[in-house]
């Protein structure tokens, strides 16, 4: 529409000499459009800023001017003069929306199993896929090659964009099957015990059921006698034996336990890639633990949130226990120590307790039936 941005006025010139009025207007460099004659009146339009310049022309030609309608953006915005903040807000919102919609604000990773999202996004960040990046500037083909080079466990990777969301799909490589070891080897005793069962798959049994063996004794030999002399093989099989294990746990009544203390919290507000630290920058000593709290909408993280960086410093904590508490703690630790015995069978368990002036000692003696053979290369 003509005159929309600067504003336009529809007017009526009544009586007088309309032709002279138009000629005078032209002489004043005022452009009149849509001029039409209706009876004694002449209707036309001009720019709002030129309307004042029409008055001398109207006076000379004897016409009376009357505004019929005001058109255009300035007149449309006039009612909002008292609410200029709203107009500025709307314009700012539109500008922001336009500026931010072409950027990357959410990066999602799909298909990864062993590689974490952070590992993948850390690789992609220097390659151009990060919050606030312009996706059009990214060379996807080069990015894929470089990302696959830096992520050796990933076999395939694709990057696609949908609005401000970039989706990274990966497929990890299948784990390779370890090749079977073929070097000549014996199976020897990993602990002292009494042999209960011997199963030989390859090699020559050196012990039989009921034999007592010491740690390091040969159980299954990889050296086979033949008509052509000794042949070396890799001994394979199972030797189950009865072994005795002793576990002793001492829990003092007063104990100093190493721990960490939170020395400082450093919050940082993150808003669309802009990080605003809410702390003074200074030297810190200790371990930094980062905790991210992002705004989530529909299960998807938005680039708005707070990052809390906790500075943890080494510290010690003194724990004081009563006799009962020390005993309970000793039994808890003993149960923890028994967990490795789960790969065998516990045939007997004898637990004894003793209390001294410094603490409580719990001793467990176990009779286990488990695999005692371990492979040892001959060469």
């Amino acid at each position: 529409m003509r005159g929309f941005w600067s504003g336009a006025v529809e007017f009526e010139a009544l009586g007088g000499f309309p032709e002279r009025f138009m000629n005078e207007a032209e002489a004043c460099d005022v452009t009149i459009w849509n001029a039409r004659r209706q009876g004694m009146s002449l209707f036309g339009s001009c720019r709002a800023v030129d309307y004042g310049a029409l008055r001398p022309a109207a006076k000379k030609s004897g016409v009376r001017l009357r505004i019929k309608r005001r058109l255009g953006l300035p007149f449309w915005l006039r009612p909002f003069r008292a609410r200029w903040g709203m107009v500025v807000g709307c314009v700012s919102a539109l500008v922001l929306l336009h500026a931010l919609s072409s950027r990357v604000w959410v990066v999602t990773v799909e298909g990864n199993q062993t590689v974490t999202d952070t590992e993948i996004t850390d690789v992609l960040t220097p390659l151009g896929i990060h919050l606030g990046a312009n996706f059009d500037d990214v060379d996807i083909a080069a990015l894929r090659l470089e990302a696959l080079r830096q992520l050796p466990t990933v076999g395939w990777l694709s990057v696609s964009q949908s609005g401000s969301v970039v989706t990274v799909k990966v497929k990890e490589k299948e784990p390779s099957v370890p090749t079977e070891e073929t070097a000549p080897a014996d199976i020897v005793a990993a602990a002292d015990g009494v042999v209960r069962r011997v199963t030989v798959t390859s090699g020559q049994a050196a012990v039989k059921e009921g034999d007592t063996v010491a740690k390091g004794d040969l159980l299954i030999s990889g050296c086979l006698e033949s008509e052509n002399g000794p042949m070396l093989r890799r001994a394979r099989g199972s030797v189950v034996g009865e072994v005795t294990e002793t576990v002793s746990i001492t829990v003092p009544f007063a104990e100093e336990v190493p721990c960490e203390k939170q020395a400082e919290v450093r919050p940082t507000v993150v808003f669309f890639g802009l990080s605003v630290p809410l702390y003074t920058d200074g030297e810190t000593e200790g371990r930094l633990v980062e905790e991210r709290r992002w705004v989530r909408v529909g299960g998807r993280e938005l680039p708005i949130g707070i990052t809390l960086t906790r500075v943890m410093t080494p510290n010690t904590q003194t724990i004081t226990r009563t006799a009962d508490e020390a005993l309970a703690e000793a039994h808890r630790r003993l149960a923890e120590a028994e967990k490795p015995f789960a790969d065998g069978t516990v045939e007997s368990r004898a637990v004894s307790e003793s209390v001294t002036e410094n603490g409580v000692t719990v001793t467990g003696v176990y009779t286990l039936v488990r695999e005692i053979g371990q492979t040892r290369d001959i060469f």
Partner: protein
Amino acid sequence: MNRREVCERTEHALGLPTGTLTSGVRLEITDNRRAVIEGCKRIVTYEEDEICVATAAGCVRFRGRELCMTARAGEQAVVTGRLTCVEYEG
């Protein structure tokens, strides 16, 4: 020989379109709905059924119905409506 005649003879001698060197009036009419005039000096008559404009070569009078001068800038004017007659005077 005045300046205008010199320009007209030069145009003729060089085979240039009329109005190239002279400030002649150009009139372009599309169907019977729209007429564009270049070289319009002033408006002589402006009525619903008649618009007359003065040019260097005389007056050009448009007759018709619902006539409207939709644009006028400098020496150019656009007349729209249902044209029934175009007359040259002078």
